[in-house]
């Protein structure tokens, strides 16, 4: 198997391109995704290759973009819509929440909605409160669609291809801060099953649950802690729905300690659910309370100085793990 290093953005682009070549029902729509290849350049070159019919620039109409994707999907197409910032999902929330995940159910299974909504969380871009949101917990709390949160180029490509082929609606949440990060990706085709977590690093003292950009923080912390004799296991769920409880629980049973690091707000965030699951299903194995490190419970501040402190970071994670291990020796 030939493996190259490509960026996260390139991996996504490859997934889109391969699926468009493979299945003529696949098409893209979104703001500025065509002529200029997207404001983050993720779709670059696809307009030239596939033309304006299959790479459709749209007006600034998030509700209509998501609604049109739903309509095309129930009529047998495989739309992949791009919503430029996760915040803007709220501009199309009626279609996103009241329609997309409920149509199959409401029609007693008569319809399928194989649409993918790609979006991104703009971590570390200092774009302030309306361009920095990350609310995957709400999507988890909304049954009916799958949710991918890739952390590496490899995962991004494999998950996106699976999401496009999957018959369920998918919300594919990218991280703009990762677009230029490189990682190994095979040249041969591969798919990643939806609902299977990835143990990004094995360890035995403490489980760190991290997704999207926080996986990198966790891995870096784990490396440093290794030197200090603390063995950290890093679990990356890769999809938040389906949620791979098994991998999480097995790890917690093994280590007895769970730290969550997440880029969304702490209160009622993804970590709350993860902590609740751990307590529900591995209560007897826990040697210490579950700790959540998350973004502060406040809108994202513009100031980089404030923003960098607003998100959890490696230092906090290292300190948390150390004191957790010490206290529950």
């Amino acid at each position, binding site marked *: 198997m030939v493996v190259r290093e490509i960026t996260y953005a390139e991996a996504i682009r490859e997934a889109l391109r391969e699926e468009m070549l493979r299945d003529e029902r696949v*098409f893209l729509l979104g703001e500025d995704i065509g002529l200029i290849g997207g404001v983050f350049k993720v779709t670059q070159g696809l307009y030239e290759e596939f033309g304006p*019919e*299959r790479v459709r620039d*749209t*007006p600034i*109409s998030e*509700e*209509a973009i*998501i*609604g*049109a*994707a*739903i*309509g*095309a*999907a*129930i*009529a*047998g*197409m495989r*739309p992949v819509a791009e919503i430029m910032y996760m915040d803007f999902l709220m501009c199309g929330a*009626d*279609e996103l929440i*009241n*329609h997309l995940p409920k*149509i*199959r*159910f*409401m*029609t*007693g*299974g*008569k*319809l*399928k909605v194989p649409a993918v909504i790609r979006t991104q969380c703009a971590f570390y871009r200092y774009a302030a409160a309306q361009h920095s949101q990350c609310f995957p917990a709400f999507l988890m709390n909304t*049954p*009916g669609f799958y949710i991918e949160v890739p952390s590496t180029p490899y995962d991004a490509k494999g998950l996106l291809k699976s999401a496009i082929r*999957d*018959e*369920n609606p998918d919300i594919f949440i990218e991280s703009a801060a990762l677009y230029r990060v490189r990682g190994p990706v095979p040249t041969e085709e591969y798919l990643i099953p939806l609902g299977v977590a990835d143990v990004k690093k094995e360890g035995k003292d403490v489980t760190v649950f991290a997704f999207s950009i926080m996986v990198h923080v966790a891995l870096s912390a784990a490396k440093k802690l290794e030197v200090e004799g603390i063995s950290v296991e890093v679990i990356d769920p890769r999809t938040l729905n389906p949620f791979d409880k098994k991998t999480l629980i097995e790890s917690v049973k093994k280590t007895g300690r769970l730290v969550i690091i997440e880029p969304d707000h702490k209160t009622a965030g993804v970590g709350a659910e993860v902590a609740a699951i751990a307590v529900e299903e591995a209560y007897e194995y826990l040697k210490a309370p579950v700790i959540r490190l998350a973004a502060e419970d406040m809108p994202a501040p513009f100031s980089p100085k404030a923003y960098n402190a607003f998100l959890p970071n490696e230092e906090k994670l290292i300190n948390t793990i150390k004191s957790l291990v010490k206290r529950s020796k």
Partner: protein
Amino acid sequence: MDVKSLSKELLLDMYYKMVLIRRFEEKLVELYRIGKIPGIAHGYIGEEAVAVGVCSALRKDDYILSTHRGHGHSLAKGVDPKYLMAELMARKTGVCKGIGGSMHSTEPEVGVIFSSAIVAGSIPIAVGVALAFKMRREDRVVVSFFGDGATNRGTFHEALNLASLWKLPVVFVCENNFYAISTHISKSISAKEIVDRAIAYNMPGKVVDGNDVLAVYEVALEAVERARRGGGPTFIEARTYRWLDHGMYYLGKYRPDEEVLAWKQRCPIKLFKERLLREGVVTEQELEMVDVRVLQEIEEAVKFAEESEETDLEFAKQFVYVR
């Protein structure tokens, strides 16, 4: 529209559909009162000519998308009343298997693809369906039904803009019954006339008497053919009136008695019947046969629904995901 230019079969079918809707809704009211139908339901009595006029202009493989007030649309497009009745009674045999209820009919085989209970919620979805047809070079047309109130939602705006921009084969049918629940259009719509909104999308707009089934049929046919030829969307404002309250509950008085009365005197079924007889294209007896057939069908529908199994949780659960 010249009645004589239309086949007797078509005319009788239109009459049949209108009477079917009327009797179905009357039965609904009756069943609702005695607690046999749960949840929320909205009657279509008085507006039959719109659904029937429009759907008569469609092929079976054309799709319609509907609203909270959708029974009429479904029946006009050919949904079997027994599956619709079973849905209203929350049975496994219902069009949505008892999971959707009154506001969510679907029967793709006859062209009813989806109804939304969110006002204007199905409009952008209709646009997406039309996009699929266009991209696949199919000559199928989509009709999006919605009310006057729906034209105030942002979704309406975004969807119509997109449909016109991309010249999609969709016909927007606004059923202007002058009220959204209790709110008269004068309190909700700032446009001089609803149809003026089409100008904002550079889309042809037509006003039609929504109680005249042939008038509706005529403008619908033109719009449908235009869409089918690749000419893009049309906006139709069909003016009509609902006889019942908004839903099954009495919400108070917000319409003048004379207004209600005047519209009832312009009953779309009565108008059509009189015209058919006046022009001598059908006989009283032929119409009566239809009336009898409808009554039978409604009774059968109720029987079918009542004999069907109620939808339970485990049954419903299997339809959340495709797995």
